């Protein structure tokens, strides 16, 4: 019938036939109408006679039920739905953390949206995994785009993270393992290294930063000398700079010694005249990156300072504050300060140096913030408080509020509260967009405090948002703290 229709009845005059039962219905019409009537009848008959197949394919095993899952009837469900819809990362992270602490998982209906969110925003994945739970993992297994959640509901200490996870998860596994079994973690990495891509190697290697010990030296040194990726070798060199007794550290110290001498507590800096032989084997670079306005000698000096263990400077019988203040007055100030900054950032747990560096000032506040974040919380808070309480500039305050991404102490919050009227008066648009973020920072015990806002229309919408967020947080804490 179809071929007749395609060619046309003018070319194919054979009368169309349906079946013995139905043909009488087609009697007494021209060829065209016979075909049309037959087509119409068969359309209806086929629709009525559908017989879908009985499948013999096995079904996926149903998802194990998750007793930790919140029911849809919970008052939290619409609140969580709204949080996921609005997509504000800070609140989502906080909500996920609270749920995880209460050992609860997201309700079923929110799982697909949460998975999509995790797919698009990789920074949220670590927060989402614990609350996606087994049900989330079961669903994610059916969509390759949600690979990140395959191990949802399991812990970083779970071996499957190493065997099946993505690079970030595997790095997290190693990091976790380093706490209890540093050499075991190193061995795993050593064995896997040859088979990994450069990108994966660059993500996995930094995990050794935890519990770094002299036994790690041989492996890291071999990476430094033999790895094909420049990025990976640079990671290796930074790791070795944290082992003062390593061969690498000895070499760097020797090189730096040629450039730095001191007499009677005064430093004399004489940057290297040439890029030495064997320097590139240690991942040092002869040519400065484009855009850096340093001469060759300054660039070499900067690299030497950044990769030499800071403890060497202390052997000069000067304390960090002194070293830094002299460096800041030197004609080689820029490469020196840049080198110190890099060294302090990579050789962590150097509270003395960090504090001294921050006190030194002359830093872009962005850098100060970033450095302060490397400090243990007690020290970081004091830095932040100082910035908050001394800076009347609302633009800077906005930056602090947005980048101080950890739990604020009561005193930090009080400092901010006190400055608030000064900041608001400036009617800065950057501060306006930081207001909702401020609502996320309030330590939980102060959520119920009422605040005295001056009546400024400029901030009306932002204030609404501020209150909505504090309301949402109060509800989360009320329901999940029982």
């Amino acid at each position, binding site marked *: 019938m*179809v071929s007749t229709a*395609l060619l046309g009845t003018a070319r194919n005059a054979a009368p169309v036939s349906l079946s013995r039962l139905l043909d009488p219905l087609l009697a007494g019409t021209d060829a*065209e109408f016979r075909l049309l009537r037959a*087509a*119409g009848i068969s359309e209806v008959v*086929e629709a009525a006679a559908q017989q*879908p197949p009985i499948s013999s394919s096995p079904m996926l095993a149903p998802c194990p039920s998750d007793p930790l899952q919140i029911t849809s009837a919970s008052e939290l469900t619409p609140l969580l739905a709204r949080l996921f819809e609005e997509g504000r990362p800070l609140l989502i992270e906080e909500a996920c953390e609270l749920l995880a602490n209460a050992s609860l998982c997201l309700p079923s209906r929110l799982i697909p949206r949460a998975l999509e969110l995790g797919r698009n925003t990789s920074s949220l994945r670590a927060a989402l995994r614990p609350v996606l739970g087994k049900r989330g993992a079961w*669903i994610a297994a059916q*969509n390759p785009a949600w690979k990140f959640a395959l191990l949802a509901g399991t812990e970083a200490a779970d071996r499957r993270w190493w065997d099946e996870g993505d690079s970030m998860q595997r790095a997290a596994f190693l990091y976790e393992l380093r706490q209890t079994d540093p050499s075991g973690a190193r061995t795993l990495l050593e064995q896997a290294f040859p088979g990994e891509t450069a990108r994966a190697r660059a993500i996995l290697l930094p995990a050794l930063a935890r519990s770094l010990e002299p036994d790690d030296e041989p492996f890291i040194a071999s990476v430094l000398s033999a790895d094909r990726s420049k990025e990976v070798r640079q990671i290796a060199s930074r790791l070795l700079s944290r082992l003062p007794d390593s061969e690498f550290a000895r070499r760097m110290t020797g090189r730096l010694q040629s450039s730095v001498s001191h007499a009677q507590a005064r430093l004399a800096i004489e940057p290297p005249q040439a890029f030495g032989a064997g320097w590139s084997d240690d991942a040092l670079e002869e040519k400065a990156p484009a855009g850096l306005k340093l001469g060759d000698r300054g660039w070499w000096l900067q690299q030497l300072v950044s990769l030499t263990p800071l403890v060497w400077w202390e052997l000069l019988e000067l304390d960090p504050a002194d070293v830094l203040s002299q460096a800041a007055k030197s004609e080689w100030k820029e490469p020196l300060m840049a080198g110190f900054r890099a060294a302090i950032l990579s050789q962590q747990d150097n509270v003395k140096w960090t504090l001294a560096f921050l006190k030194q000032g002359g830093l872009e506040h962005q850098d100060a913030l970033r450095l302060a974040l490397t400090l243990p919380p007690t020290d970081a808070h004091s830095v932040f408080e100082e910035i908050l309480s001394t800076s009347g500039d609302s633009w800077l305050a906005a930056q602090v509020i947005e980048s101080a991404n950890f739990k604020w102490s009561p005193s930090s919050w009080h400092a901010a509260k006190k400055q608030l009227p000064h900041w608001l008066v400036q009617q800065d648009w950057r501060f306006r967009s930081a207001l909702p973020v401020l609502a996320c920072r309030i330590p939980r015990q102060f959520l119920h405090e009422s605040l005295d806002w001056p009546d400024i229309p400029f901030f009306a919408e932002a204030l609404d948002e501020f209150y909505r967020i504090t309301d949402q947080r109060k509800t989360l804490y009320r329901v999940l703290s029982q």
Partner: protein
Amino acid sequence: MNLTTDQIVAMAPDDASLKAARSLTSPAKWPLLGQSSDALWGECQGSGSKPYQVSVDLTSPGSKCTCPSRKFPCKHALGLLLIAAEKPASVHQSDPPPWVTDWLTSRRQKSEKKVAAASQNRETADPEAAAKRTAKRLARMKEGGEELARWLADQVRGGIADYPRKPSSFFTAIAARMVDAQTPGLGNEISRLESMIHTGDGWPRHVLGQLGRIYLLIEALRRFESLPVPLQADLRAELGWPLDREEVLATQPLVQDNWTVLGQTYAERDKLWERRTWLWGQTTRKMALLLEFAYGNRSFAITLAVGMRIKASLAYFPSVFPLRALLADEAIGASPLSEPFPAYPDFDSCLNAFADALSGNPWLRTLPVALDGVTPLLRDEFWLLRDLTGTELRLQQGDLEKWQLLAESSGRPVRVFGEFNGRELRVLSSWEQGSPAFVATS
């Protein structure tokens, strides 16, 4: 009538209204808030000097606001509903102010008038004049049908092989002729035909089937007078000439019952929004379809959402298989369903039901069905529904919806309600212990 946040969200005409409503949920913005057993009300400070007066009828779904917005429900009504759902303590029980009681009273009066008018129409309907109008239109339509029949014959004589190369104007021209001939339904069928050409390798079969379907409509039109009356009504509906609302309300018997909303869909085409609401009657044990239209905004006067139950009188459009109906009075909110609605145990019974319906009305497109014990699953990129006998049917859902349905069932059999077109099922809701779990959002 207690609405959940989900139901309120579903009522919002668009995202902007919902967002605006959320920003109105702080009680500080409402100098006056109150509720009684009949109504919810408040005064909301807007940008003008006088606050807007907002009231929501709790017995019979509807709301009113003095703001100038043309969207319905407006952001103030939505905000008020959200406050009542999420912060009930802020809305105190008290006596309603006069502007609320006045509104409620006028609503009741209007509803009574409507019912009275309908029964009056019933008595004074002029059958003779109506018959004359019908005959005139029918004659015009038959002419159009004959013209289309000749066109169809031409197509089939010359062959349809070159359809993919035909310009769009080839089809829009004949569709426009059908609109002129007062059979817009035939025009739609031609448009549907055109869209089938570009669906891939199997298009000739589908196009031929569609040509056949159109031809059968024309043949039926030729014999209009000899068709049984309910089938005439179905044919008229297909041809784009359904009965007037007034006529239906005036001539059809009213069916009063407690109706549960089992599913709802919204579709938009050329700025015309169509809302389909499926109701199931507890005592009559029958389905009904409310079809409502709105131009421009997605605003519908009666606020209905899946899971709600209303007590109402409906008037069904005549048909061999009556489904489409009209609300004949103001629906009154009722408490949620106590017993589960019936559902087919497997696809076989569902297919038999579809075949039965087709044998009465051969032009039926979708059948509302409820099914028990079906499991949604994904296999090789096909979305399927599998019943307890192992039979599988294709699922037709939006992207995120598919996953939401899968998440709710998680590999276990569930009870669903949806629209079945003979080959595929579109799930509109899934149910767990009498309440909706998954609800289609578009």
